[in-house]
Protein backbone atom coordinates (compact mmCIF):
# COMPACT_ATOMS: atom_id res chain seq x y z
CA UNK A 1 0.00 0.00 0.00
CA UNK A 2 1.18 3.53 -0.76
CA UNK A 3 2.06 5.86 2.13
CA UNK A 4 -0.87 7.66 3.64
CA UNK A 5 0.45 11.00 2.42
CA UNK A 6 3.27 11.19 -0.06
CA UNK A 7 6.09 13.47 0.97
CA UNK A 8 5.47 15.97 -1.82
CA UNK A 9 1.86 16.46 -0.76
CA UNK A 10 2.93 16.87 2.86
CA UNK A 11 5.09 19.84 1.83
CA UNK A 12 2.82 21.48 -0.74
CA UNK A 13 -0.33 21.30 1.33
CA UNK A 14 0.94 23.19 4.44
CA UNK A 15 2.77 25.67 2.21
CA UNK A 16 -0.42 26.44 0.33
CA UNK A 17 -2.34 26.74 3.59
CA UNK A 18 0.21 29.20 4.98
CA UNK A 19 0.16 31.26 1.76
CA UNK A 20 -3.62 31.47 1.64
CA UNK A 21 -4.25 31.91 5.38
CA UNK A 22 -4.40 35.75 5.42
CA UNK A 23 -6.81 35.72 2.49
CA UNK A 24 -9.20 33.28 4.14
CA UNK A 25 -9.00 34.46 7.77
CA UNK A 26 -8.42 38.18 7.22
CA UNK A 27 -9.66 39.57 10.55
CA UNK A 28 -7.04 41.40 12.64
CA UNK A 29 -7.34 38.80 15.42
CA UNK A 30 -6.50 35.91 13.10
CA UNK A 31 -3.76 37.86 11.32
CA UNK A 32 -2.17 38.59 14.67
CA UNK A 33 -2.20 34.91 15.59
CA UNK A 34 -0.77 34.09 12.17
CA UNK A 35 2.12 36.54 12.54
CA UNK A 36 2.83 35.32 16.10
CA UNK A 37 2.77 31.74 14.87
CA UNK A 38 5.27 32.48 12.09
CA UNK A 39 7.64 34.29 14.43
CA UNK A 40 7.50 31.45 16.96
CA UNK A 41 8.08 28.91 14.19
CA UNK A 42 11.10 30.85 12.88
CA UNK A 43 12.80 31.10 16.27
CA UNK A 44 12.01 27.49 17.23
CA UNK A 45 13.33 26.26 13.85
CA UNK A 46 16.49 28.29 14.41
CA UNK A 47 16.90 26.77 17.91
CA UNK A 48 16.26 23.35 16.40
CA UNK A 49 19.48 23.43 14.35
CA UNK A 50 21.72 23.30 17.42
CA UNK A 51 19.26 22.11 20.09
CA UNK A 52 17.48 19.48 18.01
CA UNK A 53 19.80 18.22 15.28
CA UNK A 54 23.08 18.56 17.21
CA UNK A 55 21.47 17.73 20.57
CA UNK A 56 23.17 20.66 22.33
CA UNK A 57 20.32 21.99 24.45
CA UNK A 58 20.53 25.75 24.75
CA UNK A 59 18.33 27.28 27.43
CA UNK A 60 19.56 30.81 26.74
CA UNK A 61 18.82 31.42 23.07
CA UNK A 62 17.19 34.70 24.10
CA UNK A 63 20.72 36.16 24.03
CA UNK A 64 20.71 35.91 20.22
CA UNK A 65 17.07 36.90 19.91
CA UNK A 66 17.73 39.93 22.11
CA UNK A 67 20.72 41.07 20.06
CA UNK A 68 18.58 40.77 16.96
CA UNK A 69 15.81 42.75 18.63
CA UNK A 70 18.03 45.54 19.96
CA UNK A 71 20.27 46.32 16.99
CA UNK A 72 17.59 47.65 14.56
CA UNK A 73 16.28 50.10 17.16
CA UNK A 74 19.77 50.97 18.36
CA UNK A 75 20.95 52.08 14.89
CA UNK A 76 17.71 54.02 14.54
CA UNK A 77 18.03 55.72 17.93
CA UNK A 78 21.73 56.53 17.61
CA UNK A 79 22.06 57.49 13.98
CA UNK A 80 18.53 57.58 12.56
CA UNK A 81 19.25 54.69 10.23
CA UNK A 82 16.34 52.57 9.02
CA UNK A 83 15.91 49.72 11.56
CA UNK A 84 16.47 47.11 8.86
CA UNK A 85 20.12 48.25 8.64
CA UNK A 86 20.65 46.84 12.12
CA UNK A 87 19.95 43.27 11.01
CA UNK A 88 23.36 42.49 9.44
CA UNK A 89 25.12 43.99 12.47
CA UNK A 90 22.96 41.86 14.74
CA UNK A 91 23.81 38.72 12.76
CA UNK A 92 27.55 39.40 13.03
CA UNK A 93 27.28 40.10 16.78
CA UNK A 94 25.17 36.99 17.39
CA UNK A 95 27.70 34.80 15.59
CA UNK A 96 30.50 36.39 17.62
CA UNK A 97 28.64 35.69 20.85
CA UNK A 98 27.95 32.13 19.72
CA UNK A 99 31.68 31.56 19.29
CA UNK A 100 32.45 33.10 22.69
CA UNK A 101 29.91 30.86 24.45
CA UNK A 102 30.52 27.77 22.35
CA UNK A 103 34.33 27.65 22.30
CA UNK A 104 34.86 26.82 25.98
CA UNK A 105 31.67 24.88 26.69
CA UNK A 106 31.77 22.56 23.69
CA UNK A 107 34.95 21.00 25.06
CA UNK A 108 32.87 19.71 27.97
CA UNK A 109 29.69 17.62 28.28
CA UNK A 110 26.35 18.97 27.16
CA UNK A 111 25.26 20.06 30.63
CA UNK A 112 27.93 22.76 30.73
CA UNK A 113 26.59 24.24 27.53
CA UNK A 114 23.07 24.43 28.98
CA UNK A 115 24.30 26.03 32.18
CA UNK A 116 26.50 28.49 30.34
CA UNK A 117 23.73 29.60 27.97
CA UNK A 118 21.31 30.28 30.82
CA UNK A 119 23.96 32.24 32.76
CA UNK A 120 25.15 34.29 29.77
CA UNK A 121 21.60 35.20 28.75
CA UNK A 122 20.87 36.32 32.30
CA UNK A 123 24.14 38.25 32.47
CA UNK A 124 23.30 40.14 29.27
CA UNK A 125 19.72 40.80 30.42
CA UNK A 126 20.86 42.40 33.68
CA UNK A 127 23.67 44.27 31.97
CA UNK A 128 21.44 45.72 29.24
CA UNK A 129 19.00 46.77 31.96
CA UNK A 130 21.65 49.02 33.50
CA UNK A 131 23.23 50.39 30.32
CA UNK A 132 21.95 53.87 29.45
CA UNK A 133 23.14 53.81 25.83
CA UNK A 134 20.64 51.06 25.04
CA UNK A 135 17.83 52.60 27.09
CA UNK A 136 18.54 50.70 30.35
CA UNK A 137 15.41 49.20 31.93
CA UNK A 138 13.03 51.22 29.72
CA UNK A 139 14.37 49.97 26.41
CA UNK A 140 14.23 51.48 22.94
CA UNK A 141 11.57 52.70 20.55
CA UNK A 142 11.44 52.62 16.77
CA UNK A 143 10.09 55.12 14.22
CA UNK A 144 6.50 56.01 15.10
CA UNK A 145 5.60 56.72 11.48
CA UNK A 146 7.33 55.31 8.42
CA UNK A 147 9.69 57.76 6.71
CA UNK A 148 9.63 55.55 3.64
CA UNK A 149 8.96 51.96 2.74
CA UNK A 150 12.45 51.03 3.96
CA UNK A 151 11.40 51.62 7.58
CA UNK A 152 9.10 48.61 7.21
CA UNK A 153 6.46 50.21 9.40
CA UNK A 154 3.09 49.11 8.09
CA UNK A 155 -0.42 49.69 9.36
CA UNK A 156 -1.63 46.36 8.11
CA UNK A 157 -0.36 43.02 9.38
CA UNK A 158 -0.39 41.44 5.92
CA UNK A 159 3.07 42.70 4.76
CA UNK A 160 4.58 41.40 8.01
CA UNK A 161 2.86 38.09 7.51
CA UNK A 162 4.42 37.54 4.09
CA UNK A 163 7.87 38.81 5.10
CA UNK A 164 7.86 36.42 8.06
CA UNK A 165 6.61 33.58 5.88
CA UNK A 166 9.47 34.16 3.42
CA UNK A 167 12.03 34.08 6.25
CA UNK A 168 10.48 30.91 7.65
CA UNK A 169 10.80 29.41 4.18
CA UNK A 170 14.50 30.32 4.07
CA UNK A 171 15.15 28.82 7.52
CA UNK A 172 13.34 25.59 6.64
CA UNK A 173 15.05 25.31 3.25
CA UNK A 174 18.44 25.76 4.89
CA UNK A 175 17.58 23.10 7.48
CA UNK A 176 16.35 20.72 4.78
CA UNK A 177 19.58 21.20 2.86
CA UNK A 178 21.64 20.57 6.01
CA UNK A 179 19.66 17.38 6.65
CA UNK A 180 20.85 15.87 3.37
CA UNK A 181 24.45 17.00 3.45
CA UNK A 182 27.47 15.70 5.26
CA UNK A 183 27.07 18.46 7.85
CA UNK A 184 23.64 17.09 8.79
CA UNK A 185 25.00 13.58 9.19
CA UNK A 186 27.79 14.96 11.38
CA UNK A 187 25.21 16.70 13.58
CA UNK A 188 23.13 13.58 14.06
CA UNK A 189 26.23 11.49 14.72
CA UNK A 190 27.26 13.94 17.46
CA UNK A 191 23.80 13.81 18.96
CA UNK A 192 23.76 10.01 19.02
CA UNK A 193 27.21 9.66 20.57
CA UNK A 194 29.88 12.28 20.66
CA UNK A 195 32.62 9.81 21.43
CA UNK A 196 31.64 7.49 18.58
CA UNK A 197 31.41 10.46 16.19
CA UNK A 198 34.89 11.63 17.16
CA UNK A 199 36.36 8.18 16.72
CA UNK A 200 34.93 8.11 13.19
CA UNK A 201 36.72 11.35 12.34
CA UNK A 202 33.89 13.86 12.77
CA UNK A 203 35.34 17.28 13.70
CA UNK A 204 33.06 17.46 16.73
CA UNK A 205 33.83 20.84 18.24
CA UNK A 206 34.00 22.61 14.92
CA UNK A 207 30.70 21.11 13.77
CA UNK A 208 28.95 22.05 17.02
CA UNK A 209 30.28 25.61 16.76
CA UNK A 210 29.10 25.94 13.16
CA UNK A 211 25.64 24.69 14.13
CA UNK A 212 25.47 27.13 17.01
CA UNK A 213 26.63 30.04 14.83
CA UNK A 214 24.04 29.27 12.14
CA UNK A 215 21.33 28.87 14.76
CA UNK A 216 22.36 32.14 16.44
CA UNK A 217 22.24 34.02 13.14
CA UNK A 218 18.69 32.85 12.37
CA UNK A 219 17.57 33.52 15.94
CA UNK A 220 18.92 37.07 15.68
CA UNK A 221 16.91 37.55 12.49
CA UNK A 222 13.81 36.37 14.36
CA UNK A 223 14.51 38.98 17.04
CA UNK A 224 14.89 41.69 14.39
CA UNK A 225 11.60 40.72 12.73
CA UNK A 226 9.88 40.81 16.10
CA UNK A 227 11.08 44.33 16.86
CA UNK A 228 10.44 45.68 13.37
CA UNK A 229 6.84 44.64 13.84
CA UNK A 230 6.31 45.79 17.45
CA UNK A 231 8.46 48.93 17.26
CA UNK A 232 9.76 48.81 20.83
CA UNK A 233 11.90 46.57 23.00
CA UNK A 234 12.93 46.24 26.66
CA UNK A 235 15.40 43.90 28.39
CA UNK A 236 12.80 41.37 29.54
CA UNK A 237 11.00 40.90 26.24
CA UNK A 238 14.36 40.58 24.45
CA UNK A 239 16.65 38.63 26.79
CA UNK A 240 14.15 37.20 29.33
CA UNK A 241 14.33 33.49 30.10
CA UNK A 242 10.76 32.98 28.87
CA UNK A 243 11.86 33.89 25.34
CA UNK A 244 14.29 30.95 25.44
CA UNK A 245 11.66 28.74 27.03
CA UNK A 246 9.26 29.33 24.18
CA UNK A 247 11.75 28.25 21.51
CA UNK A 248 12.66 25.17 23.51
CA UNK A 249 9.14 24.04 24.26
CA UNK A 250 7.83 24.59 20.72
CA UNK A 251 10.65 22.58 19.16
CA UNK A 252 10.47 19.82 21.79
CA UNK A 253 6.68 19.54 21.60
CA UNK A 254 6.63 19.11 17.83
CA UNK A 255 9.79 17.04 17.68
CA UNK A 256 13.32 18.32 18.24
CA UNK A 257 15.65 17.43 15.40
CA UNK A 258 12.92 17.09 12.78
CA UNK A 259 12.31 19.56 9.95
CA UNK A 260 8.64 20.29 10.61
CA UNK A 261 8.63 19.60 14.35
CA UNK A 262 8.87 23.28 15.32
CA UNK A 263 6.03 24.10 12.92
CA UNK A 264 3.77 21.52 14.51
CA UNK A 265 4.78 22.73 17.98
CA UNK A 266 3.99 26.34 17.13
CA UNK A 267 0.72 25.32 15.51
CA UNK A 268 -0.41 23.82 18.82
CA UNK A 269 1.21 26.14 21.33
CA UNK A 270 0.47 29.58 19.87
CA UNK A 271 -3.34 29.13 19.70
CA UNK A 272 -3.17 27.50 23.14
CA UNK A 273 -1.25 30.48 24.50
CA UNK A 274 -3.71 32.93 22.94
CA UNK A 275 -6.59 30.97 24.43
CA UNK A 276 -5.14 30.81 27.96
CA UNK A 277 -4.20 34.49 27.85
CA UNK A 278 -7.70 35.56 26.84
CA UNK A 279 -9.29 33.06 29.22
CA UNK A 280 -7.32 34.02 32.33
CA UNK A 281 -6.70 37.65 31.36
CA UNK A 282 -3.37 39.47 31.16
CA UNK A 283 -2.69 39.17 34.89
CA UNK A 284 -3.16 35.43 34.73
CA UNK A 285 -0.34 34.90 32.25
CA UNK A 286 1.41 33.06 35.09
CA UNK A 287 -1.02 30.23 34.41
CA UNK A 288 0.30 30.04 30.86
CA UNK A 289 3.77 29.32 32.23
CA UNK A 290 2.49 26.76 34.72
CA UNK A 291 1.00 25.05 31.68
CA UNK A 292 4.30 25.41 29.79
CA UNK A 293 6.19 23.83 32.68
CA UNK A 294 3.69 20.99 32.85
CA UNK A 295 3.96 20.34 29.10
CA UNK A 296 7.77 20.35 29.23
CA UNK A 297 7.87 17.86 32.12
CA UNK A 298 5.31 15.70 30.38
CA UNK A 299 7.28 15.61 27.10
CA UNK A 300 10.50 14.78 28.95
CA UNK A 301 8.88 11.98 30.91
CA UNK A 302 6.71 10.33 28.26
CA UNK A 303 7.56 11.56 24.73
CA UNK A 304 11.09 12.95 24.50
CA UNK A 305 10.82 12.60 20.70
CA UNK A 306 7.84 14.95 20.63
CA UNK A 307 4.64 14.59 18.63
CA UNK A 308 6.54 13.73 15.45
CA UNK A 309 7.93 10.52 16.93
CA UNK A 310 4.56 9.70 18.46
CA UNK A 311 2.98 10.09 15.02
CA UNK A 312 5.60 7.84 13.44
CA UNK A 313 4.79 5.17 15.99
CA UNK A 314 1.04 5.48 15.78
CA UNK A 315 0.63 6.08 12.03
CA UNK A 316 1.56 2.57 10.80
CA UNK A 317 -0.93 1.04 13.22
CA UNK A 318 -3.66 3.42 12.05
CA UNK A 319 -2.82 2.62 8.45
CA UNK A 320 -3.06 -1.08 9.14
CA UNK A 321 -6.41 -0.65 10.77
CA UNK A 322 -7.59 1.50 7.85
CA UNK A 323 -6.36 -1.13 5.46
CA UNK A 324 -8.17 -3.90 7.36
CA UNK A 325 -11.40 -1.94 7.28
Amino acid at each position, binding site marked *: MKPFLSSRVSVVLPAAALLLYPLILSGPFYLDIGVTFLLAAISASAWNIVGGYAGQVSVGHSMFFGIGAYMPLLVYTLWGWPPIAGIPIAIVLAIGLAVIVGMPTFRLTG*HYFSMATIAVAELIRIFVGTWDLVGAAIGLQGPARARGWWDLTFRSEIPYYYIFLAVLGIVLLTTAMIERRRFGFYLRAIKASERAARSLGVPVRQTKLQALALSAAFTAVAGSLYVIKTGFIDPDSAFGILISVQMLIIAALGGAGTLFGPLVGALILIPLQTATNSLFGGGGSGLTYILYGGIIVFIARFEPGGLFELWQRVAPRLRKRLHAA
Partner: protein
Amino acid sequence: MVAVQVVVGGLLLGAIYALFSSGLTLIWGMMNFINFAHGEFVMLGMYVALLVVLWLHGGPPVFIAAAALSLFVLGIGIYLSLIRHVIRGPMLAQILSTFGLALLLRYTAFFIFSANFVSLPQTTLGGTIKLGGIFLPVAQLVAGAVAIVLTVSLHLLLTRTTIGSRLLAVAEDRAAAMLMGIKPDRMQALAWGLSAGAAGIAGALLATAYPWSPSVGETFGLVAFVVVALGGFGSVLGSLYAGLIIGLIQAVSAYWLGPIYKDIVVYGLFVALLWLRPQGLMGKV
Protein backbone atom coordinates in the same frame (compact mmCIF):
# COMPACT_ATOMS: atom_id res chain seq x y z
CA MET B 1 34.83 49.05 60.13
CA VAL B 2 32.28 49.21 57.32
CA ALA B 3 34.57 47.04 55.25
CA VAL B 4 34.64 44.38 57.98
CA GLN B 5 30.87 44.56 58.23
CA VAL B 6 30.52 44.01 54.47
CA VAL B 7 32.98 41.11 54.48
CA VAL B 8 31.35 39.32 57.42
CA GLY B 9 27.87 39.83 55.97
CA GLY B 10 29.04 38.38 52.64
CA LEU B 11 30.61 35.34 54.28
CA LEU B 12 27.46 34.63 56.30
CA LEU B 13 25.31 34.70 53.15
CA GLY B 14 27.99 32.68 51.36
CA ALA B 15 27.67 29.96 54.00
CA ILE B 16 24.03 29.49 53.00
CA TYR B 17 25.03 29.48 49.31
CA ALA B 18 27.46 26.70 50.21
CA LEU B 19 24.71 24.66 51.86
CA PHE B 20 22.25 24.66 48.95
CA SER B 21 25.00 24.35 46.35
CA SER B 22 26.32 21.23 48.09
CA GLY B 23 22.95 19.67 47.25
CA LEU B 24 23.38 20.48 43.57
CA THR B 25 26.94 19.19 43.47
CA LEU B 26 25.87 15.95 45.22
CA ILE B 27 23.42 15.15 42.42
CA TRP B 28 26.00 16.02 39.78
CA GLY B 29 28.59 13.80 41.46
CA MET B 30 26.14 10.93 41.87
CA MET B 31 24.63 10.82 38.42
CA ASN B 32 26.14 13.46 36.09
CA PHE B 33 22.88 15.32 36.17
CA ILE B 34 22.20 19.04 36.48
CA ASN B 35 19.08 19.96 38.39
CA PHE B 36 17.70 23.18 36.89
CA ALA B 37 15.00 23.27 39.59
CA HIS B 38 17.44 23.40 42.50
CA GLY B 39 16.88 27.12 43.12
CA GLU B 40 13.16 26.44 43.21
CA PHE B 41 13.74 23.92 46.02
CA VAL B 42 15.38 26.74 48.02
CA MET B 43 12.39 28.98 47.26
CA LEU B 44 9.96 26.28 48.41
CA GLY B 45 11.94 25.90 51.64
CA MET B 46 11.40 29.60 52.29
CA TYR B 47 7.63 29.35 51.81
CA VAL B 48 7.40 26.21 53.95
CA ALA B 49 9.10 28.19 56.74
CA LEU B 50 6.64 31.05 56.25
CA LEU B 51 3.59 28.78 56.35
CA VAL B 52 4.81 26.95 59.44
CA VAL B 53 5.37 30.24 61.24
CA LEU B 54 1.99 31.68 60.19
CA TRP B 55 -0.15 28.60 60.78
CA LEU B 56 1.60 26.66 63.54
CA HIS B 57 3.54 29.52 65.15
CA GLY B 58 6.61 27.28 65.17
CA GLY B 59 9.98 28.65 66.25
CA PRO B 60 13.17 28.41 64.17
CA PRO B 61 13.94 24.75 65.07
CA VAL B 62 10.41 23.75 64.06
CA PHE B 63 10.23 25.53 60.71
CA ILE B 64 13.77 24.58 59.75
CA ALA B 65 13.01 20.93 60.46
CA ALA B 66 9.71 21.21 58.60
CA ALA B 67 11.42 22.70 55.52
CA ALA B 68 14.09 19.99 55.61
CA LEU B 69 11.61 17.17 55.94
CA SER B 70 9.11 18.36 53.34
CA LEU B 71 11.82 19.04 50.75
CA PHE B 72 13.47 15.70 51.54
CA VAL B 73 10.19 13.96 50.75
CA LEU B 74 9.64 16.11 47.65
CA GLY B 75 13.14 15.30 46.40
CA ILE B 76 12.56 11.57 46.73
CA GLY B 77 9.15 11.90 45.10
CA ILE B 78 10.60 13.79 42.15
CA TYR B 79 13.34 11.21 41.73
CA LEU B 80 10.91 8.30 41.76
CA SER B 81 8.27 9.84 39.53
CA LEU B 82 10.42 11.76 37.04
CA ILE B 83 14.21 11.62 37.23
CA ARG B 84 14.48 7.82 37.38
CA HIS B 85 12.68 7.62 34.04
CA VAL B 86 14.59 10.33 32.16
CA ILE B 87 18.08 9.55 33.44
CA ARG B 88 18.74 6.90 30.80
CA GLY B 89 16.91 8.86 28.09
CA PRO B 90 18.36 11.39 25.65
CA MET B 91 20.13 14.51 26.91
CA LEU B 92 17.19 16.63 25.75
CA ALA B 93 14.82 14.75 28.08
CA GLN B 94 17.20 15.12 31.02
CA ILE B 95 17.52 18.86 30.62
CA LEU B 96 13.85 19.40 29.78
CA SER B 97 12.64 17.45 32.82
CA THR B 98 14.10 19.64 35.56
CA PHE B 99 13.88 22.81 33.46
CA GLY B 100 10.14 22.23 33.07
CA LEU B 101 9.90 21.40 36.75
CA ALA B 102 11.55 24.73 37.59
CA LEU B 103 8.96 26.63 35.53
CA LEU B 104 6.15 24.63 37.05
CA LEU B 105 7.27 25.27 40.65
CA ARG B 106 8.19 28.94 40.05
CA TYR B 107 4.94 29.95 38.41
CA THR B 108 2.80 27.88 40.75
CA ALA B 109 4.44 29.82 43.59
CA PHE B 110 3.67 33.08 41.75
CA PHE B 111 0.09 31.96 41.38
CA ILE B 112 -0.36 31.00 45.04
CA PHE B 113 1.79 33.59 46.84
CA SER B 114 1.75 36.46 44.26
CA ALA B 115 4.87 38.32 43.14
CA ASN B 116 5.07 40.44 46.32
CA PHE B 117 8.07 40.25 48.61
CA VAL B 118 7.41 38.64 51.98
CA SER B 119 9.47 38.03 55.10
CA LEU B 120 9.09 36.13 58.34
CA PRO B 121 7.52 38.03 61.26
CA GLN B 122 10.04 40.11 63.19
CA THR B 123 9.73 38.06 66.35
CA THR B 124 11.36 34.88 65.02
CA LEU B 125 15.03 35.75 65.36
CA GLY B 126 15.24 39.48 66.01
CA GLY B 127 17.83 41.88 67.29
CA THR B 128 21.45 42.60 66.53
CA ILE B 129 24.58 41.94 68.53
CA LYS B 130 27.82 43.86 68.65
CA LEU B 131 30.86 41.74 67.87
CA GLY B 132 34.29 43.35 67.86
CA GLY B 133 33.02 46.74 66.73
CA ILE B 134 30.54 45.60 64.06
CA PHE B 135 26.80 45.07 64.32
CA LEU B 136 25.39 41.77 63.17
CA PRO B 137 21.74 40.74 62.96
CA VAL B 138 21.32 37.63 65.14
CA ALA B 139 19.34 35.92 62.38
CA GLN B 140 22.18 36.22 59.84
CA LEU B 141 24.75 35.01 62.35
CA VAL B 142 22.71 31.96 63.39
CA ALA B 143 21.75 31.12 59.79
CA GLY B 144 25.34 31.34 58.57
CA ALA B 145 26.70 29.25 61.44
CA VAL B 146 24.05 26.55 61.04
CA ALA B 147 24.69 26.44 57.29
CA ILE B 148 28.41 25.87 57.74
CA VAL B 149 27.82 23.13 60.32
CA LEU B 150 25.34 21.38 58.03
CA THR B 151 27.56 21.58 54.94
CA VAL B 152 30.46 20.11 56.87
CA SER B 153 28.12 17.41 58.22
CA LEU B 154 27.06 16.52 54.69
CA HIS B 155 30.71 16.24 53.71
CA LEU B 156 31.37 13.98 56.72
CA LEU B 157 28.27 11.92 55.99
CA LEU B 158 29.59 11.23 52.50
CA THR B 159 33.19 10.51 53.49
CA ARG B 160 32.98 8.93 56.97
CA THR B 161 29.84 6.78 57.15
CA THR B 162 28.65 3.52 55.62
CA ILE B 163 25.72 5.23 53.96
CA GLY B 164 28.13 7.73 52.43
CA SER B 165 30.34 4.95 51.11
CA ARG B 166 27.29 3.34 49.52
CA LEU B 167 26.32 6.63 47.88
CA LEU B 168 29.83 7.12 46.55
CA ALA B 169 30.01 3.51 45.41
CA VAL B 170 26.93 4.01 43.24
CA ALA B 171 28.44 7.22 41.89
CA GLU B 172 31.70 5.44 41.08
CA ASP B 173 30.35 2.34 39.39
CA ARG B 174 26.68 1.48 39.37
CA ALA B 175 27.11 -2.10 38.24
CA ALA B 176 29.88 -2.90 40.70
CA ALA B 177 27.86 -1.37 43.54
CA MET B 178 24.94 -3.61 42.61
CA LEU B 179 27.20 -6.66 42.80
CA MET B 180 28.13 -5.60 46.33
CA GLY B 181 24.47 -5.72 47.29
CA ILE B 182 23.79 -1.99 47.14
CA LYS B 183 20.51 -0.95 45.55
CA PRO B 184 21.47 1.97 43.25
CA ASP B 185 17.91 3.18 42.86
CA ARG B 186 17.51 3.54 46.60
CA MET B 187 20.83 5.36 46.95
CA GLN B 188 19.98 7.77 44.16
CA ALA B 189 16.56 8.45 45.69
CA LEU B 190 18.34 9.14 48.98
CA ALA B 191 20.74 11.50 47.22
CA TRP B 192 17.81 13.43 45.75
CA GLY B 193 16.21 13.59 49.20
CA LEU B 194 19.43 14.89 50.78
CA SER B 195 19.98 17.36 47.94
CA ALA B 196 16.47 18.83 48.11
CA GLY B 197 16.55 18.68 51.91
CA ALA B 198 19.76 20.73 51.98
CA ALA B 199 18.12 23.27 49.66
CA GLY B 200 15.04 23.33 51.89
CA ILE B 201 17.05 24.00 55.07
CA ALA B 202 19.03 26.67 53.26
CA GLY B 203 15.74 28.26 52.21
CA ALA B 204 14.41 28.25 55.78
CA LEU B 205 17.69 29.77 57.03
CA LEU B 206 17.57 32.47 54.34
CA ALA B 207 13.97 33.21 55.27
CA THR B 208 14.98 34.12 58.83
CA ALA B 209 17.28 36.90 57.63
CA TYR B 210 16.21 38.11 54.17
CA PRO B 211 12.91 39.01 52.44
CA TRP B 212 12.01 37.11 49.25
CA SER B 213 9.52 36.58 46.41
CA PRO B 214 8.88 33.54 44.14
CA SER B 215 11.49 34.76 41.64
CA VAL B 216 14.41 34.14 44.04
CA GLY B 217 14.52 30.55 42.85
CA GLU B 218 15.95 31.63 39.51
CA THR B 219 18.64 33.76 41.15
CA PHE B 220 19.63 31.09 43.68
CA GLY B 221 19.66 28.43 40.98
CA LEU B 222 22.16 30.45 38.99
CA VAL B 223 24.22 31.19 42.11
CA ALA B 224 24.35 27.45 42.78
CA PHE B 225 25.66 26.85 39.22
CA VAL B 226 28.41 29.40 39.78
CA VAL B 227 29.34 27.95 43.18
CA VAL B 228 29.45 24.42 41.81
CA ALA B 229 31.45 25.51 38.77
CA LEU B 230 33.94 27.27 41.04
CA GLY B 231 34.16 24.54 43.66
CA GLY B 232 34.29 21.69 41.19
CA PHE B 233 31.44 19.47 40.06
CA GLY B 234 30.79 16.78 42.64
CA SER B 235 32.83 18.21 45.51
CA VAL B 236 30.91 19.15 48.66
CA LEU B 237 33.98 20.59 50.34
CA GLY B 238 34.71 22.54 47.15
CA SER B 239 31.25 24.07 47.23
CA LEU B 240 31.78 25.11 50.86
CA TYR B 241 34.84 27.18 49.94
CA ALA B 242 33.28 28.39 46.69
CA GLY B 243 30.05 29.39 48.43
CA LEU B 244 31.95 31.55 50.92
CA ILE B 245 34.00 33.10 48.10
CA ILE B 246 30.93 33.89 45.98
CA GLY B 247 29.10 35.39 48.98
CA LEU B 248 32.14 37.55 49.66
CA ILE B 249 32.51 38.67 46.03
CA GLN B 250 28.81 39.54 45.86
CA ALA B 251 28.88 41.59 49.03
CA VAL B 252 32.04 43.42 48.06
CA SER B 253 30.88 44.22 44.51
CA ALA B 254 27.43 45.27 45.74
CA TYR B 255 29.06 47.64 48.22
CA TRP B 256 31.68 49.20 45.96
CA LEU B 257 30.04 49.01 42.53
CA GLY B 258 26.35 49.20 43.42
CA PRO B 259 23.72 46.54 44.19
CA ILE B 260 22.83 45.89 40.53
CA TYR B 261 26.38 44.84 39.72
CA LYS B 262 26.60 42.02 42.25
CA ASP B 263 24.90 39.57 39.88
CA ILE B 264 26.77 40.85 36.82
CA VAL B 265 30.10 40.24 38.58
CA VAL B 266 29.09 36.74 39.70
CA TYR B 267 27.75 35.60 36.31
CA GLY B 268 30.76 37.19 34.61
CA LEU B 269 32.97 35.15 36.91
CA PHE B 270 31.07 32.03 35.86
CA VAL B 271 31.73 32.67 32.16
CA ALA B 272 35.39 33.42 32.88
CA LEU B 273 35.64 30.14 34.84
CA LEU B 274 34.21 28.15 31.96
CA TRP B 275 36.91 29.61 29.75
CA LEU B 276 39.86 29.31 32.10
CA ARG B 277 39.26 26.52 34.58
CA PRO B 278 36.17 24.45 33.75
CA GLN B 279 37.04 21.81 36.36
CA GLY B 280 36.72 24.36 39.20
CA LEU B 281 39.00 24.90 42.16
CA MET B 282 38.98 21.34 43.50
CA GLY B 283 37.24 19.29 40.87
CA LYS B 284 38.28 17.22 37.91
CA VAL B 285 36.55 16.97 34.55
